[in-house]
């Protein structure tokens, strides 16, 4: 080799191998078939985008006149679907966001939603990941509870039956995942326990809950569960649905966490054992930090799924965001404007889910920096 080697430093790659032109050539126009597909898809995409812009912006109606009989939606109806009638959102957004909560008190659920978002942002910042964060959670959730229920500090009492809309969705999702996640870790650890009783209990829990649709669990929580309670004792309907969601999410998350535990090499357990770490030290310092990092993508996948599944509480008559949206267009004046309402509600779900997804990708990259060489 040495006699044929030509001394040369590293060279830049040829211009055709890097940059946007090279990228387009390899990915979009690498042959006649790929060029044809690219052009066809490009045409379709542009056509769809243009017609959406027409519908959503150019032909849209943003507000409608109103008289003694209520809003006059004739102008919207005359569009015959050629343009969006965003007036329905302007008119009904308070109902969609807050349901049947007393109108003049809407600032309370609004503030509750803001507190939830603040809580999410605080919890997302890694330098705040200390035990004090638990106190922040307890404090914030208590404040949210006081805001929603009232009855103290001069706030009028609002029974839970009148709550609705976005706060319900956020309450179900936040409490649901905040309790289901620790539960799932315990269950996943329990499934790998060397104590047979604990193991059997955890397996039974996971298999029973996972084998039943969430809807039937919600029905059970709302219809059957009260039958088992002593006379006169009644647990709040929302709380019962909340417990059903926690149990259900717990079972699914437990299997995700267990996947992470199983993916960890046996040597990690042995090294921790050999150093004399106790079970909980080993689990808390060595096993879980690694196992949970590995399962961030499926964990967040499950989180996002459950955030949206909270909308199933509509079947037991709880007014979450989606149900409130559906109910908003029952009024005769607004019947037929479902698309606009669903786009609005969908956009709210999308914002939360996309935030989760985006954050998790950042977190994953950050927490797994030890894997980089």
């Amino acid at each position, binding site marked *: 080799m040495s006699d044929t080697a030509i001394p040369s430093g590293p060279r830049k790659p040829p211009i055709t191998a890097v940059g946007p032109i090279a990228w387009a050539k390899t990915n979009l126009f690498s042959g006649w078939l790929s060029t044809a597909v690219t052009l066809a898809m490009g045409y379709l995409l542009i056509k769809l985008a243009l017609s959406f812009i027409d519908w959503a912006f150019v032909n849209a109606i943003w507000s409608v006149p109103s008289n003694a009989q209520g809003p006059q939606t004739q102008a919207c109806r005359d569009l015959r679907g050629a343009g969006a009638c965003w007036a329905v959102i302007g008119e009904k957004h308070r109902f969609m966001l807050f349901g049947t909560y007393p109108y003049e008190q809407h600032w309370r659920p609004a503030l509750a939603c803001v507190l939830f978002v603040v809580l999410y942002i605080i919890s997302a910042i890694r330098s705040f990941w200390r035990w004090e964060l638990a106190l922040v959670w307890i404090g914030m959730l208590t404040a949210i509870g006081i805001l929603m229920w009232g009855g103290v500090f001069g706030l009028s009492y609002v029974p839970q039956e009148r709550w609705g809309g976005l706060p319900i969705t956020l309450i179900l999702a936040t409490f649901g995942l905040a309790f289901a996640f620790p539960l799932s870790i315990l269950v996943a650890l329990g499934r790998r326990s060397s104590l047979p009783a604990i193991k059997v209990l955890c397996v039974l829990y996971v298999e029973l809950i996972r084998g039943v649709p969430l809807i039937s669990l919600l029905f059970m929580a709302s219809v059957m569960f009260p039958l088992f309670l002593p006379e006169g004792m009644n647990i709040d309907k929302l709380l019962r649905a909340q417990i059903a969601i926690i149990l259900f999410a717990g079972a699914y998350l437990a299997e995700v966490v267990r996947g992470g535990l199983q993916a960890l*090499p046996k040597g*990690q357990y*042995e*090294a*921790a054992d*050999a*150093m*004399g770490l106790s079970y909980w030290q080993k689990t808390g310092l060595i096993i879980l930090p690694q196992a949970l990092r590995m399962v961030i993508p499926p964990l967040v996948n499950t989180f996002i799924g459950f955030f949206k599944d909270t909308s199933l509480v509509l079947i037991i008559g709880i007014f979450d965001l989606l149900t409130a949206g559906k109910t908003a267009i029952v009024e005769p004046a607004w019947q037929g404007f479902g698309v606009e309402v669903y786009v609005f509600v969908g956009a709210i779900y999308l914002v939360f889910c996309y935030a989760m997804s985006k954050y998790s990708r950042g977190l994953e990259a950050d927490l797994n920096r*030890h894997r980089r060489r």
Partner: protein
Amino acid sequence: MSATATAEQIASAARADAPPAIELAGVNKWFGALHVLRDVNLAVAPGERVVVCGPSGSGKSTMIRCINRLEIHQEGRIAVEGIELTDDVRALDAIRREVGMVFQSFNLFPHLTVLENCTLAPIWVRRTPKKEAEELAMELLARVKIPEQALKYPGQLSGGQQQRVAIARALCMRPKIMLFDEPTSALDPEMIKEVLDVMVELAGTGMTMMVVTHEMGFARQVADRVVFMDQGEVVEVGTPDQVFNAPKTDRLKLFLSQILRGH
């Protein structure tokens, strides 16, 4: 040279009186129906360096892993520093604090830095203050010649460097006994020497060591005794000279001829 010899003599004289650091008496172990340790009897004196060799599947790793109960023996008695290994968790914790272990596959914690790997057990098990634990860790990382890697993650290090960190990590617990389970078997040839050098240096400090290895050069250089195992039995025990130059059994002769051919 003569000074070392006298030191050796004094040390071995002291060993004769002290209770054994490790004692295995009539130890039997089965994996299912497979009899992997057959009536193993062995005593290691404080400060003694014992090298265990033998063909793969001979039970040498299983034996060494029984000493800190990573494997559980079914019959016989194992005592470390006079404490017998039983189901008693406190006895086990006490033993594990005194026994450091180095694994074939390093088993460093990949999510912690080199320094955190070293300070974890002293802080959580020995309750050493963090600052003190870090000072000791840096001192030991210097002894294994990689203090400059302290803030890196194990994944950023070469195999040889990782194994040296693993040795430093075990030493951070200030153990009385060090167990090595094939510490160089997973390493590229050019990295074996850097790990063996650290182990030779450690042997010079008078640490009680039990080493499962195929490195016969290392055995000749530092071992007080060599234990040859085959099929779960201790077949021969003797000084490196006796075992390597005057094997008594056919099994050992066969093993020696095989590894010599390999070299």
